[in-house]
């Protein structure tokens, strides 16, 4: 797949916009999920994920072909979500709660597994609880926890995505795990 993406990027760089749609198709769910976990709600996630792809397209000439495209794309998305979190108005959360049904729809759309209906409700509650606890971590820990345990990047890859030293990634993942342990220990 890496090879196909590399080829598509080359075409985009030559000015072929249509080639970019394959790139979007391939990464859309990953990048959307990343934004959703970072921001905690569907509305902002869609905005920021869309913005990430647009910025990637506009700045494609500055992407170094020798590097991994996914790393570069995740970096753009992470930076956008962290900026968004910083710029949030204090009353934002009130609005988000009123519009909160979006999240409900999202969970009801999730693929069903073969567990009983009552188990499933608990599953949804648990999913929502975990999601909530992730959303409340400070962003610098949140990004690393999401990249490591939901998106399954290695610590080295995370260091490249976030452009911070490996040692810093390790310190932050330790703190992130401890913070979540305290929040999730009674689940």
């Amino acid at each position: 797949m890496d090879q196909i993406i590399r080829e598509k990027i080359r075409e985009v760089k030559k000015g072929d916009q249509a080639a970019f749609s394959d790139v979007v198709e391939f990464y859309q769910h990953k990048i959307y999920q990343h934004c959703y976990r970072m921001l905690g709600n569907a509305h902002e996630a869609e905005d920021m994920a869309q913005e990430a792809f647009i910025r990637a397209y506009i700045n494609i000439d500055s992407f170094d072909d020798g590097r991994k495209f996914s790393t570069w794309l995740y970096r753009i998305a992470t930076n956008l979500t962290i900026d968004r979190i910083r710029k949030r108005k204090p009353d934002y959360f009130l609005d988000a709660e009123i519009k909160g049904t979006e999240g409900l729809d999202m969970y009801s759309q999730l693929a069903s597994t073969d567990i009983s209906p009552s188990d499933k409700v608990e599953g949804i509650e648990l999913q929502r609880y975990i999601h909530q606890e992730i959303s409340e971590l400070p962003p610098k820990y949140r990004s690393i926890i999401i990249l490591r345990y939901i998106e399954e990047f290695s610590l080295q890859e995370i260091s490249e995505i976030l452009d911070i030293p490996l040692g810093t990634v390790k310190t932050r993942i330790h703190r992130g795990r401890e913070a979540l342990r305290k929040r999730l220990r009674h689940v």
Partner: protein
Amino acid sequence: MNAHSESIALMHKYLDGDLNKTEEQQLQGHLEGCEDCQAHLRELRRTIALLQSTEHIEAPVNFADKVMNHLPKEKKRMKYKR
């Protein structure tokens, strides 16, 4: 650093696959006699398992089309080439 905080630091190294042989024995030795630290490690492992159990979330339908519709206009030279 006391024995517990040292042991917790080792747990995190363990979770990141960074323990050497000596440290592994040190952690093992401490855990055998310390129920608090056993519980701590159990909670850390469970936290990770919970994170890994989160459902994968998909982008909304038409997401890709919306992105493509928001891109700036294609450079002209490419259109001639096709």
